[in-house]
């Protein structure tokens, strides 16, 4: 079962160049070389709340993530990273099981992610809505739904859906579509703490 470790941070003022060099030449390759995780994407939050920089790693299991984050090599990388970034946080995500698993590879294109908490009283209605309406409708709008995750460790909201397109205008057309608004209003009747982000490649690994 693939799991995702998402890192969030802002680059410290005046450290952009040092960060770029460190991230591309040390952070990504040294994590990839452990074989415990592959860094599959680095993103800028084009619309939504910060932190502004998001890096995503995928492992085959929670055990592998645990092995990585306890390894001296990772701790050393993390210490170097912390000298260059602020507002750091991370989340460990496990699949909801409602979206087919994908091969572990670099993620390209643009992302439209929605996050929320399911109202406990509406849980079963939400499950039916997600399977029969939400995910099929998002695909119909042209947004390929590539990930559905629970936050296993980290801050809520604890459900994250990842959509992807190769063309940002598809997301733009969807956001203007009254059918999308109606779909979102229906989702909002079953969830709380809703938000969404538009992510564009940071240019470090997934140009």
């Amino acid at each position, binding site marked *: 079962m693939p799991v995702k470790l998402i890192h969030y941070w802002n*680059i410290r*003022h005046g450290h952009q160049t040092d960060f770029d060099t460190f991230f591309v030449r040390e952070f990504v390759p040294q994590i990839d070389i452990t074989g415990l995780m592959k860094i599959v994407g680095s993103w800028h939050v084009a*619309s*939504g709340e910060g932190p502004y920089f998001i890096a995503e790693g995928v492992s085959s299991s929670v055990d592998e993530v645990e092995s990585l984050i306890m390894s001296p090599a990772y701790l050393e990388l993390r210490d170097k990273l912390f000298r260059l970034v602020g507002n750091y946080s991370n989340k460990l995500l496990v699949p909801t099981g409602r979206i087919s698993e994908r091969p572990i590879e670099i993620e390209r294109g643009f992302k439209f992610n929605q996050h929320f908490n399911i109202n406990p009283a509406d849980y079963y209605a939400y499950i039916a809505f997600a399977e029969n309406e939400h995910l099929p409708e998002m695909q119909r709008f042209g947004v390929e739904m590539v990930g559905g995750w629970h936050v296993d460790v980290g801050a809520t909201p604890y459900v994250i859906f990842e959509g992807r397109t190769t063309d940002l205008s598809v997301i733009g057309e969807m*956001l*203007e579509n009254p059918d999308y608004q109606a779909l979102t209003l229906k989702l*909002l009747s079953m969830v709380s703490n809703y938000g969404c982000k538009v992510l564009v490649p940071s240019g470090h690994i997934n140009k």
Partner: protein
Amino acid sequence: MTVKFIQYYDVLSGKDEEYRNFISKSYIPGINETDLIQIVGSWYLAAGEGPYHIMEGVADSVKSVHRLLLLDDFKKLNHLLHFLITNYKTKIMVPTGTVESQLPRETNFRFNHHYDINYAQYDDYVHFIHNEHLPTMEKLGINMIGGWHVSLGPGPGIVVEGSCASVKHILEVIGSKEYGELTSRLLAMVDGYGSKILAPTGLVP
């Protein structure tokens, strides 16, 4: 001096139809009749963090907003609103003076940025906003219609409002190299950066 009174909230589950009726038939007309504030926008969040609904009012002074908040009629309207919503919060915003406030007459979508200025770089920031950020955003097709300090209410402390005829165009801007570079430069001078895309609910005529 134009000021803005912004209300944020989520509509309670199952109350959407009742909410829309109340807002369009009672709440907005009731506030507008006071002549202290005009509700000029009702938005839903197309991209960004909630709350999902945003009501935008303008007044000629902070004093007018405070007079509204103390009116019994407003208190009654707001009391009724709270039966239909949750996660309510408000802000009063005053102009920064960097952008001449405008209210687009035609249907428009908003692309708003919010952040705190890193005051160690305040002079660089002001120069950058005047000479690079605002002109570049305009050149990219985003009409910059307001720059605000949050005078009362939760931060971040600066809100810069952009307007555009389509979300599709906003997304094109977001994907452009020029916008990416502009944002990277802005981020070197600010903290707590975020942005929202807002779409009209159709509740304000």
